[in-house]
C-alpha cells in the first residue's frame, strides 16, 4: 500500500506543471458553449496538442505520450490546479477514442485520432433519442444498407456540443427484426454537416446551446465509419458507457481544484460558521474521490477490469459536484446569483451530472444488482 509516486512520475508531473505554467491563458476563456468560446477552446486544444499534452494517455503514434493511468491522474491534477480551461474535445477524447483504441481499425485510428487530439475535429455524442434515454436499447433511429455504406434516418437528442461540433457518433438500428431490443444495432460515426443532417440547438438551463437535437434524413455514411462491424453496436457502446462512468470522464484533479477554491473562498469570507461542515465535506469528498480513483487505477494496473464499480464512481462525483456548487452559492449568498459568476455557471453545469451518462437511478440499480446481489425488481 503506497501513495507515493516514482521519481520518473514526479518528473513527468514537474514537466507538465512547467508547461502549463507557461501556457495556460492568463484570463479564463469565454464559455465553450458559445460560438466565440468554442473557437477559443479549439485553439487551446491545438496548443495542447502541438506539445502532446491534449491526450497524454494515448499512444504516441496518435498524438499522445503513451503514459499510463497514474501519469494521466497526475497530469489532470496539475491541469486543473493550474486553472486551465475546460476541454471542448472531451466527448471525443473520453468516449469515442477509447472505443476506437479497442474496437476500431488501424485505418480509423490513424484517420480520426490525431485531428481529434489537435482539436481540428470536435466530436459530439449522439446516443439519446426522444424515446430512448437511459433505456438506450429502445432506440429507433435506423441505418439502412446502401452501396458502399449506410443511410441514417431518425432523430437524436440531448447531443452535447452538437451545436458547434464537426462530427458525431452513435448507435443505429440496422437489423430491425431482431428478437431483443439491444440486438441488431450498429455503431456509426457521421458528419454533422453532411447533406440530410439538421442540427437544432437546445438551450440548456443557462440558455446556452450546449446540446442539440439532430435530425437525420437518409444521411450517407461510408462503411469505413462503422465501428466494430455491423450489428455489434450494443456491446461496443457498453464498453464506452463503462468508460464514461469510469475513470476518465471526471478526473479527481478537477474536484481537488474546485474544493481548494471553495476552501479558499470560505477562509476569505470569514470562515462562515453556517457552511463550515459542508465546506469540509467538499474538501473531504475531493480527497475521497482522488483516493478511490487511485485504488481503482491500482486494480486496473493489476490487470482487473473496471466493472460495476464505475457506477459507484458516477453517482459519487455527480452528486458531489452539485453539493460543492450549492455550498459555494450558499456561502456567497446574493453575490452568487449573477449567472455569469464562475460558481453559478458551474452550478448550472453540475445539475446535469446526475441525469446524463445513465441516470443515477439506473446506476443505483446496477449497484444493487451487480455489487450487492439484490434481486432484480420492476424498474
Amino acid at each position: 500500500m503506497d501513495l507515493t509516486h516514482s521519481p520518473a512520475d514526479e518528473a513527468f508531473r514537474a514537466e507538465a506543471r512547467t508547461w502549463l505554467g507557461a501556457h495556460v491563458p492568463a484570463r479564463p476563456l469565454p464559455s465553450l458553449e458559445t460560438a466565440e468560446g468554442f473557437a477559443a477552446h479549439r485553439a487551446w486544444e491545438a496548443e495542447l496538442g502541438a506539445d502532446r499534452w491534449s491526450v497524454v494517455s494515448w499512444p504516441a503514434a496518435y498524438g499522445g505520450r503513451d503514459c499510463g493511468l497514474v501519469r494521466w491522474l497526475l497530469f489532470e491534477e496539475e491541469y486543473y490546479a493550474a486553472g486551465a480551461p475546460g476541454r471542448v474535445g472531451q466527448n471525443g477524447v473520453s468516449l469515442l477514442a477509447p472505443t476506437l483504441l479497442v474496437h476500431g481499425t488501424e485505418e480509423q485510428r490513424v484517420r480520426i485520432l490525431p485531428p481529434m487530439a489537435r482539436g481540428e475535429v470536435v466530436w459530439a455524442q449522439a446516443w439519446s433519442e426522444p424515446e430512448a434515454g437511459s433505456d438506450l436499447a429502445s432506440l429507433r433511429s435506423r441505418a439502412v444498407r446502401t452501396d458502399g455504406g449506410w443511410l441514417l434516418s431518425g432523430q437524436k437528442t440531448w447531443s452535447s456540443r452538437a451545436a458547434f461540433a464537426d462530427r458525431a457518433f452513435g448507435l443505429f438500428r440496422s437489423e430491425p427484426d431482431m428478437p431483443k431490443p439491444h440486438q441488431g444495432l450498429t455503431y456509426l460515426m457521421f458528419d454533422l454537416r453532411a447533406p440530410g443532417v439538421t442540427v437544432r440547438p437546445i438551450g440548456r438551463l443557462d440558455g446556452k446551446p450546449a446540446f442539440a437535437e439532430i435530425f437525420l434524413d437518409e444521411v450517407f455514411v461510408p462503411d469505413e465509419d462503422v465501428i466494430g462491424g455491423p450489428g455489434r453496436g450494443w456491446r461496443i457502446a457498453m464498453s464506452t458507457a463503462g468508460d464514461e462512468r469510469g475513470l476518465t470522464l471526471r478526473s479527481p484533479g478537477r474536484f481537488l481544484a474546485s474544493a481548494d477554491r471553495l476552501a479558499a473562498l470560505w477562509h476569505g469570507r470569514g470562515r462562515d460558521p453556517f457552511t463550515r461542515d459542508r465546506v469540509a465535506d467538499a474538501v473531504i469528498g475531493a480527497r475521497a474521490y482522488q483516493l478511490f480513483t487511485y485504488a481503482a487505477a491500482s486494480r486496473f494496473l493489476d490487470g482487473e477490469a473496471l466493472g460495476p464499480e464505475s457506477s459507484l464512481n458516477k453517482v459519487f462525483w455527480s452528486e458531489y459536484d452539485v453539493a460543492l456548487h450549492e455550498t459555494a452559492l450558499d456561502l456567497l449568498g446574493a453575490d452568487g446569483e449573477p449567472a455569469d459568476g464562475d460558481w453559478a455557471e458551474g452550478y448550472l453545469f453540475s445539475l446535469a451530472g446526475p441525469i446524463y451518462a445513465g441516470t443515477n437511478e439506473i446506476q443505483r440499480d446496477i449497484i444493487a444488482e451487480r455489487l450487492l446481489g439484490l434481486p432484480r425488481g420492476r424498474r
Partner: protein
Amino acid sequence: MRFLLDAEQTAFARSLDALLTAADTPAVVRSWGAGDPAAGRALWSRLADAGVFALAVPEAYEGLGRRPVELAVAFVELGRHAVPGPLAETVAAAVLLTGPGPAKRFLPGLAAGRTIATVALPGGGPYVLDTDASDMELTVTGTGSAAETGTGTGSAGAELRVTQASGSPPASRVRRSLDAARRLSLPRAGGELLDAGPQVAAGAAEALRWARLTTAAQALGVGLALLDRTVAYVKRRSQFGVPVGSFQAVRHRLADAKIALEFARPLLFGAALSMDPADIAAAKVTACEAAYATARTALQLHGAIGYTAEYDLSLWLTRARALRSAWGGPGECRAAVLGTDALSGGARRCS
C-alpha cells in the same frame, strides 16, 4: 504508487475474520455489556496472539513496530464483528507510553494482551471507556486549553498518571452507554505519576490521532457488517409475494450505503499511510457518517425486528452511534479538516 492492500495484509484480515466468526462475538458483546468481561478477555488474548495490539507497540518493547495500515486492517475486522472493549483506547495507551521507564514496564503487557488499558485524554470527551473491565487507566491532565491542541504551549504542567485495576470505581459510578456494550465513568484523579512536561502533551495529541484512526476503522467495519446483514435480510424477507430487496426504494437505499462505505475506505487507508491529522479527521468523520447512515438504513429495512435488543443487529446499530461521538465528533473532525483547529497545524491543500 500501488494504493491497495498487499497479499499479506489481505490474509491478515481474512485470518482475523475467521477467528472472530468462530468466536461468537454477539454472545461476547452481550456478556461484556452485562458486566462479565471473562469471555471478552479471552477473546482479547486471542486477538493479541494474532498480533493485533503488537501493531501499536515498538519492536523494542515486544511489539511489531507501529504499523497504522495493518492496525486499520485489523480494526475494520474488529468493527465488523462488534468486538467490545477499550480497543482504540488500548492503542492510544500504547502510543502514550513513550518514556523508557513506563514503556518498558507496560508495553510488553499491552502487546501480549495481558493488559487492557483505557485512557482519558484532553479532547477525548468526558468519560473513560470500560475502566471497570480494564487493568489500568491512563490519564493526561494539566495540559491547559492550548494543550488540547497539541501545540505544546502551556503544556509544561502536563502530567501522565496511571491507576491500576485495584482502584476500579464502584459499579454505582459506571454508566451504560447508549451502546449496551460500552461502560462509561468519569476519569479518576490522582494515581501514580509516570511522566510530566511538554512531551506528555505532545504524546497525548499523538495518541488522540491513533485513537481516531482506529475508531474510524472500527466504524467502517461496523458499517460493512450492517450492510451485509441487511442485504442478506432483504433477500430472504418477502412481502407482497416478492423479496423486499426487489423494491427499488429498498435497493436504492442500500446502494447509497454501499457508495458511502466504499468512499470512506480509501480515506481510511490514505490516513493510515500519512498519519496526517487532517487526513485522519476526514477518515473519522466520513467512516462514522457512512456507518451511521447505514445503521439507519439497516434499522428501517429490518423493520420491527431490527428495533429489538434480542436481535443481534442492535449490537452494530448502537455501536455506530457511539463511535460517531468517540474521539472527536463530526463537528470537531470537520474543523480539523479545514485547519481551523490547532491539531491540524493550519490550512492545507487537499492534494
